[in-house]
């Protein structure tokens, strides 16, 4: 798929089929099928480049290595995050959907469980993404960080519920049945 150029842009250069990591000090960031492809920004217009940059910076500032994969067969947040966790050498993965909904997962937990869940995509900010990267890295090191505070806004429903549903339906259209996850190199082009 052609890379849409919006400032700052991001393209996911495909490296190959994603394999299980061996480094115990890595976190896998797992992205949904339309991330940085059909879609370029979250439901509240945070550029996907910014999402990736903040999460990776959060992971790396803890001295932990990050690897990025993209899923093609599912847009279910728990499945995306759990796949990331299972591919991760530390067993810790972060799943992010195109609209911005995010989850930190651990490979030995049941799929429908999670370490931390951020269900309200409209309330996500670059700072929260950075804190999520930081916490995931701490879990990978065996620490027990304070969970990132989740926000709640009662008026998110009238404003965003239907758009979130549309974004989800659109992302579901991009699914390729049975396609394996791919490892990708995120190339961020920031004109700034």
């Amino acid at each position: 798929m052609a890379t849409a150029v919006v400032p700052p842009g991001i393209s996911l250069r495909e490296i190959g089929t994603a394999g299980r990591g061996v480094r115990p000090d890595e976190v896998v960031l797992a992205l949904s099928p339309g991330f940085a492809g059909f879609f370029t920004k979250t439901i509240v217009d945070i550029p996907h480049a910014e999402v990736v940059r903040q999460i990776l910076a959060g992971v790396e500032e803890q001295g932990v290595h990050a690897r990025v994969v993209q899923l093609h067969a599912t847009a279910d947040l728990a499945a995306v995050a759990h796949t990331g966790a299972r591919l991760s050498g530390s067993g810790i993965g972060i799943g992010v959907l195109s609209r911005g909904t995010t989850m930190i997962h651990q490979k030995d937990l049941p799929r429908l469980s999670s370490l931390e869940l951020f269900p309200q995509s409209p309330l996500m900010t670059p700072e929260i993404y950075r804190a999520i990267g930081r916490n995931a890295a701490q879990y990978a090191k065996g620490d027990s960080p304070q969970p990132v505070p989740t926000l709640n806004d009662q008026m998110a429903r009238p404003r965003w519920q239907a758009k979130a549903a549309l974004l989800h339906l659109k992302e579901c259209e991009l699914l390729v049945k049975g396609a394996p996850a791919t490892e990708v190199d995120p190339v961020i082009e920031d004109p700034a």
Partner: protein
Amino acid sequence: MSSLPYPEAPQPRRSLRTEVLENRPVNKDGFVQEWPEVGMVAMDSDFDPRPSIRIENGRVAEMDGRERADFDFLDQFIADHAIDVDAAVEAMALGPRTVARMLVDPNVSRAEVLRTARGLTPAALLETVRQMNIVEIMMGMQKMRARRTPANQAHCTSARDNPLQVAMEAAEASLRGFSELETTLGVVRYAPLVAIALQVGGQVGRGGRLTQCALEEATELDLGMRGITAYAETISVYGTESVFVDGDDTPWSKAFLAAAYASRGIKMRFTSGTGSEVQMGNAEGRSMLYLEIRCILVTKGAGVQGLQNGSISCIGVPGAVPGGIRAVAAENMIASMLDLECASGNDQSFSHSPMRRTSRLMPQIMAGTDFVCSGYSSTPNYDNMFAGSNVDAEDYDDWNAIQRDYQIDGGLQHVGEPEILAARSRAGYALQAVFAHLDLPAITEREIETAVYAHGSNDLIPRDVLEDLKGAQSVMDRGVTGLDLVKALHERGFADIAENLLTVLRSRVSGDLLQTSAILDANLEPLSAVNDANDYAGPGTGYRPTGERWEQMKRLRHVTSAENPELEVS
């Protein structure tokens, strides 16, 4: 609007009027285009099935264009349990326009519509309401509502799960007229204390209010079986097989659960609503209303007395598409048309716009439903643990004025401050006594004094949450029941509250609250669709607020006296 902090394109000049309109609250609401192929459409879709039925050997052999062998589990449950095969052929032959006319024609009785409706398939019910505009849907609702007297339900919750606040809100809500009180929790472990508080508060004053604590099924059933709560309504059903299975249930598991509740004498209704399937991405290309009609028929077939519907927690979805709120009114009307109790939504934050919030209420408050809101937030919305309601404690005076303007009964009335303070105070002292009697963490005078005059949990003295949670656990461990609450209240000098609670518990033994649309009236006697059947038959008939009730509704906070215009009456 985009909030990108990146190079700005030059903006065309905007008029001052556009700026004013741009800043109106309605423009914070989300609106989306229809996408019928995936079910993002309210009720007018070319992808919905067309009505049909074929009966063979007393069984439905084909329904809405699908052969029995191809039925999914909802089709089969509906065909075998909801549709009356003896009525079906004749009812289906009438055609949607005739049935729609029957709904609005005062010469056709409610009973006659019921005889027809029981033979209609999901697609036939959909085609029927597609003939109807919003006023006709409201006329249908007015006639088909099961209970003659409309009522209302309150949410009594606390952002800090403070039991004292919940007890006082319950007592105030009861005084203001709500027949049912529902709570839920931020911290689930707090449930036993908050449920006790709700039950005690709901029996203050006239009492007899039915209470509910929305939790996962096992705990909810447990509290109900102990007599700490009186009814349940968060038993969800869905309109496609895949979403139903994702919810880890089937129509048969839910029907079994319905029998389980009734076997413990607990009133119960199901919950469903337009938009839930498309929101989960599995609408199977059907419109929101078509899928909701399947939920209504599953409820009917399971032998459940009622349904909470009106989109409920998915209201942002139908609220964003064209004709969506018409579809929401139609789903309430169809529940009534199938002779189910209808707790008709208006219970979730719906719009930033005060005008849209009011307009959202109109079909249900004007036509009257069994419960106009399935819950009205009795607290400010920041304390509402159901993620906010369409109307909250700050809207009480507006609600009462609307009732008075149109002479329509939304179940509430204005109450003077001294009475409210007295009820809140009494609820506080009653709960203090119950906690003391049961060795639960003490409630202090200062806490009560503060809470009586409070608006929301921000105004309260915080409780020792860890101690309260230990107390909550001990309530479960010791097997405290409603009977223990009765004894505690009686022994500590709250005989009237104790007597009211015992009456509520006794009504479980009689089973009278299990009948359709049951509440307790002012004498704490059961009032349901059996002994208060809706008898609307055109102008001059049916329920109308008159006499003492109308006098009560005429009172507001500020009304200028006719006798002496320098004074106010209230």
